[in-house]
C-alpha cells in the first residue's frame, strides 16, 4: 500500500547537505540573536534600565508658597491662601481634537467659560510644556472643584490642583509697594537668576515681590510617583516637601501706610505720599492713589483689565506716583534754592531782601501767590511766609553768578533729577531743567526758546520744567534734618524665617554727604518750623493744636489749564526731626488746602496722636 517512492532507507548525501544547510541557518540565526541580546542586556543594560525607570517614574510638582511680607511690627501685609485650580493633565487628555472639544464644552459649562476661550488658554500652555499641567481656571469655588472630581468620567483629562494664591488682607493698601506676581516672563526665563524656577511658576513682577523675589520665592517640592502605562498612579515613591519662601519684613508701618492712602483717597484721589526715617532712610509708608487690588494679578489678569489699569483716563492705577510721578514741586523746592544761595555766598541766613510783591526778569513779571507784598525779609522769614519774590531774586542771581549752574548743582546734590535708589523697581529720575538741556531741545526745534533767566526763576520756586516725585522731596528734606546725609530710602528691613526670626539683615547702603554748612541747614530748618508754627506761616493753621512740633513747607504747583497741584513736606519732631513726610495731591489746589492736612493725618498715625476730628485746609497762602 505504500508507494515505492516513499522508500528512503538511507540518508542520501543530498538530504544530508540540505539538513546541514537548515542547521547552518539556525546556527547563524541563534548567533545573531545571542549577540543582539548581549548588546542589549549586557552592554547597554544600564541605559535601558534608566529608560525603564524614566518610563515609570513621574515627578509631580508641588508648588511652594511664597514667603509672607510683614510690616515693621510683624503684621502680615501679604500672605497666601490655598485655592483650587482646574487644570488639564496631558497624560489623560483625549488625543483627538473632537474629543477635546467635547471636554472644553463640558468644562465651559461648569466654569462658565466659552469653549473657545478655554482652547485659547490651554493649547499654548500644552504646546510650551507638553508634560506639565495646563491651567484652565484659577481660584475655582470648592463646590465646583469637588463636583469635577466626583464626575471624572465626564471630564476626562481635567483635574483639580491645589495652589497658593497671594492674599492681601488689606486690599488696596500698599499695592504699589508689594507689587504683583505673575508667571515667569520670557526674559526672566533666560535670566540666570531664575534658573531654579520652573516654567509656569509665579514670580514677582513688580514692587518688592520683584525686588526681593529670590528670598520670597520658595523651593517647589516634588512628589515622585510610579505610574503604569496609562499614566494611572500606581504607588507613591518619594516626596520632597515644598519649602516656603522666606518672610520679608518691611520697614513700612501698616498704620502709617493706611493713614496715607486714606488721606489721599479723601482728596481728589490722585496723588502720592512718602514717609521716611530721616536718619536711616527706612520707609514707613509709600503710597499712590488711585490704587488697585493686587490679588487680581495672582489669578492671572486679562489683557483688557491690564490695559484698564494702565489707562491714564482711569488715573493709571498701576503707576506708583510716589517714585514715578514727575511733578513740578512748587514752593517745596525753595529749600534747595535757599541751600544753593547760601552755599554760593549770595546770601547769609540774615541777608535781607525786599519783596515788593512782584519781580520782573527778561520782560516777564513774576508775582507772589495772591499778589501779596511781604516787604523786607531774611531767609527764615521768607520760608515762613513763602515769599516767591525773595526766591525769584535768588534764582535770577544764581543764573548769572559764576557758571550760573549753582541751583542745578545743589538740586542734584539733594537728589533731584536722579534716582533715589530705593529698593523698589521702576523708579523714574524725573527732570532737573538745565541750560544745556533746554538749549539742546531748542537746537532740535523741540521748544520755542533757549534757556533764559526766567527758567531759573521758575525753577527757584519749583515751577516750569522741573519734574520730581514725593520720594525725592522726602530724601531732600531729610538731608536738611539729619545732619546733611542724602540717604537712600529702604523698604526691605530683613529676611526672616516663618516664625519671624531674623536670618539676614538687609543692609542700607551708605548715605551720600551733602556737604553743607550746619548753620545753613539749621537756618532753613528754623524757617520751615516757622512756616508751620509762627503767625503768618503758611501751614500754621493746619498744625494748630497738633501736639508734635512740625516743620514743613507747603507747595502749590501750577499746571496749565488744570487745577493747581498741592504739596506738603513735613519734618517732625522739631528741633530734631526723626521723620519726613512728603505728600502731593495732583489737583488739590493750595498746599495748605489739601496736602498739609493729609500730612497732619499721616503724622498723627506716625506719632500715635488721637485726633478728635479731621483738620480742614488752612486757606489760600503759599
Amino acid at each position, binding site marked *: *500500500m*505504500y*508507494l515505492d*517512492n*516513499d*522508500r*528512503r532507507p538511507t*540518508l542520501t548525501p*543530498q*538530504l*544530508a547537505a*540540505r*539538513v546541514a*544547510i*537548515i*542547521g547552518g*541557518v*539556525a546556527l547563524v*540565526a*541563534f548567533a*545573531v*540573536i*545571542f549577540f*543582539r*541580546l*548581549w548588546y*542589549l*542586556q*549586557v552592554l*547597554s*543594560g*544600564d*541605559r*535601558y*534600565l534608566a*529608560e*525603564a*525607570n524614566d*518610563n*515609570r517614574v513621574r515627578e509631580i510638582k508641588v508648588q511652594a508658597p511664597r514667603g509672607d511680607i510683614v510690616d515693621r511690627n510683624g503684621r502680615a501685609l501679604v500672605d497666601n491662601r490655598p485655592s483650587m485650580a482646574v487644570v488639564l493633565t496631558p497624560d489623560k487628555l483625549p488625543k483627538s481634537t473632537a474629543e477635546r472639544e467635547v471636554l472644553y464644552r463640558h468644562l465651559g459649562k461648569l466654569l462658565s467659560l466659552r469653549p473657545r476661550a478655554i482652547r485659547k488658554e490651554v493649547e499654548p500652555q500644552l504646546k510650551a510644556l507638553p508634560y506639565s499641567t495646563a491651567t484652565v481656571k484659577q481660584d475655582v469655588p470648592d463646590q465646583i472643584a469637588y463636583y469635577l472630581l466626583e464626575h471624572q468620567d465626564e471630564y476626562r483629562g481635567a483635574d483639580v490642583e491645589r495652589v497658593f494664591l497671594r492674599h492681601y488682607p488689606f486690599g488696596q493698601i500698599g499695592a504699589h509697594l508689594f507689587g504683583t506676581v505673575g508667571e515667569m516672563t520670557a526674559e526672566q526665563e533666560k535670566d540666570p537668576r531664575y534658573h531654579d524656577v520652573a516654567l509656569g511658576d509665579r514670580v514677582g513682577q513688580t514692587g518688592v515681590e520683584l525686588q526681593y523675589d529670590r528670598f520670597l520665592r520658595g523651593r517647589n517640592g516634588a512628589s515622585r510617583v*510610579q*505610574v*503604569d*502605562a*496609562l499614566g494611572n498612579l*500606581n504607588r507613591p515613591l518619594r516626596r520632597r516637601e515644598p519649602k516656603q519662601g522666606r518672610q520679608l519684613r518691611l520697614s513700612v508701618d501698616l498704620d502709617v501706610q493706611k493713614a496715607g492712602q486714606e488721606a489721599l483717597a479723601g482728596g481728589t484721589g490722585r496723588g502720592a505720599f512718602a514717609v521716611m526715617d530721616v536718619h536711616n532712610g527706612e520707609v514707613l509708608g509709600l503710597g499712590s492713589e488711585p490704587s488697585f487690588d493686587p490679588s487680581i494679578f495672582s489669578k492671572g489678569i486679562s489683557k483688557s483689565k491690564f490695559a484698564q489699569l494702565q489707562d491714564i483716563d482711569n488715573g493709571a492705577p498701576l503707576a506708583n506716583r510716589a517714585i514715578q510721578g514727575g511733578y513740578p514741586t512748587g514752593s517745596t523746592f525753595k529749600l534747595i534754592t535757599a541751600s544753593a544761595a547760601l552755599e554760593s555766598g549770595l546770601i547769609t541766613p540774615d541777608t535781607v531782601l525786599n519783596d515788593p510783591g512782584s519781580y520782573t526778569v527778561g520782560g516777564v513779571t513774576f508775582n507772589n501767590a495772591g499778589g501779596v507784598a511781604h516787604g523786607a525779609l531774611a531767609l527764615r522769614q521768607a520760608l515762613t511766609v513763602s515769599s516767591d519774590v525773595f526766591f525769584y531774586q535768588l534764582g535770577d542771581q544764581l543764573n548769572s553768578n559764576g557758571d550760573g549752574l549753582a541751583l542745578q548743582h545743589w538740586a542734584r546734590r539733594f537728589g533731584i533729577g536722579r534716582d533715589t535708589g530705593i529698593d523698589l523697581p521702576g523708579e523714574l529720575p524725573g527732570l532737573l531743567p538745565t541750560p544745556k538741556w533746554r538749549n539742546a531741545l531748542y537746537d532740535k526745534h523741540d521748544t520755542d526758546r533757549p534757556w533764559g533767566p526766567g527758567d531759573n526763576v521758575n525753577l527757584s520756586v519749583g515751577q516750569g520744567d522741573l519734574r520730581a516725585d514725593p520720594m525725592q522731596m522726602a530724601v531732600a528734606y531729610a538731608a536738611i534734618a539729619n545732619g546733611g546725609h542724602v540717604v537712600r530710602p529702604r523698604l526691605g528691613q530683613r529676611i526672616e524665617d516663618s516664625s519671624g526670626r531674623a536670618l539676614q539683615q538687609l543692609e542700607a547702603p551708605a548715605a551720600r554727604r551733602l556737604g553743607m554748612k550746619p548753620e545753613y541747614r539749621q537756618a532753613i530748618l528754623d524757617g520751615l518750623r516757622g512756616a508751620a508754627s509762627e503767625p503768618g506761616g503758611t501751614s500754621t493753621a493746619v498744625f494748630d493744636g497738633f501736639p508734635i512740633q512740625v516743620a514743613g513747607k507747603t507747595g502749590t504747583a501750577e499746571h496749565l489749564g488744570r487745577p493747581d497741584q498741592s504739596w506738603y513736606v513735613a519734618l517732625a519732631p522739631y528741633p530734631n526731626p526723626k521723620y519726613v513726610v512728603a505728600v502731593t495731591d495732583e489737583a488739590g489746589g493750595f498746599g495748605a488746602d489739601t496736602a498739609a492736612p493729609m500730612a497732619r493725618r499721616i503724622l498723627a498715625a506716625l506719632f500715635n496722636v488721637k485726633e478728635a476730628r479731621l483738620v480742614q485746609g488752612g486757606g489760600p497762602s503759599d
Partner: protein
Amino acid sequence: MSSSPVSEFRERGIRILPIDPLLLLAVLGLTAASLYVVGTATQDDIPGDPNYYLVRQAGYAGVGLVLMLIISRFDYSRWREWKTGIYGLMIVSILLVSAIGFSARGSKRAIEFGFINFQASELGKLLLILSLSAFVVDRMRRLGDRDTTSRIILLTLFPAMLVITQPDLGSGLVYIAIALAVLFVAGTKWTHFAGLGALAVAAVLLVLVVAPAAGVEVLKPYQVDRLTAFLNPTNNPAKEGYQINQSLTAIGSGGKTGRGNEATQTRLDFLPEHHTDFIFSVVGEELGFVGAAIVLSLFALLIWRALRILTMAKNLYGALIAGGITAMVMFQVFVNVGMTIGIMPITGVPLPLVSYGGSSVLVTFMALGVLQSIYARARETAYAKGL
C-alpha cells in the same frame, strides 16, 4: 506485508515505543519557562484573579502533553492516506473562522469553544505540513518539474492568503516557510528556489510600493506600519515604534540576571501583549541574559532534535513532515524573538510553547507528537532490522 518483522511486532501488541528524551526535555523545559513567565507577567492583568492566565496556560500545557503522547503512539504514515481530507479540513476551518469567528483587535481569527478560542490558522500549520508533505511524496518522481513546485506553492498560497486576509499576516508567512522547507528537504532544484525568490521580491515590491502608489490596498496600513516600524522605531514612538521601544527597554533593562519582581516594564503594562507576542521580552526583563539564553538553548535543543529526527525518519514522508515542523518552529522562534529585539518586523507570530494561547500551545504539542511518532517509527524500524 504481513510477514515483515514490523507488522509482526505490531501484531504482537508490544507497544513500548521509544520516545526521544532530549526532545521531551526541551519541551518540558520550555513549558516550565512559559508557566513561570506567563504567571509572573500577568499577576495584575485581571483584577481579582492574579492566576487567570497561569491556570489556563497550565491547562493547555497539560492537555497538550497528553495529546502529544497520544499522537506519538500513532503511526504518522496514516496521515498520508488522509491528505485530501486534511487539506480540506484546513481550508474549511479557516473559512469557517473568517465567516463566524469573533474579532480580536480587529482581526477575525478564532472561534470560541468554551475553554479555548480555536484559531484555525494555528491548527492549519500542522494540517498543512501533513497534507503538503503527502502531496510532495506523491509527486516525488516528477520533483524536477516546474509544475510540481508551482502546484505545491499554489496549494500553500491559497490557505496563506486566506489567513492573511483575516488578517493574520504572521501565520500566512509561517505557511510559506513550511512549504519552502518541505520542498527544500524533498530536494527541489535550486533554480526553482531562485525563481520563487525573484517572485517573492516582486510580490513584496508590488504590495508595499506599487499597489499603494496605484491606490490599491493589499495590506492594511497598520500592517505596513508594523512591518516597517522596526527599521526606525524612534520615528513614531507613540504608535508602531512604541511596542518595539518598550520591548527593547524591557529586554535591555533586564541586564545580565534580570529584574525579577522589579520588572516594571511588564508589571506596569508598558510592554504591550506581554503574555502573548512579547513574552520573550518578559523573559529578557525578568530573567535577564541568563534566562533568555536558557530559553534559546532549549529551542536550539528542540531544533537540533527535530533535524536529527528528520535524518532518522524511516521514510520520505516522515522526513518531509519533520522538515516542515522544524521550519514551523524555527521560523516562529526567529521571527518572534527577532521582533522583540528589534531586528525583525512585528508580524504577530507567537513564540512556540512559551506564548500564552491555547491554539498555539496545543498545535505545537501536537506537531511535536508527530515528531515523536516519526522518531518512534524510525527506532522501531531500526530495531526490527537488528540495528
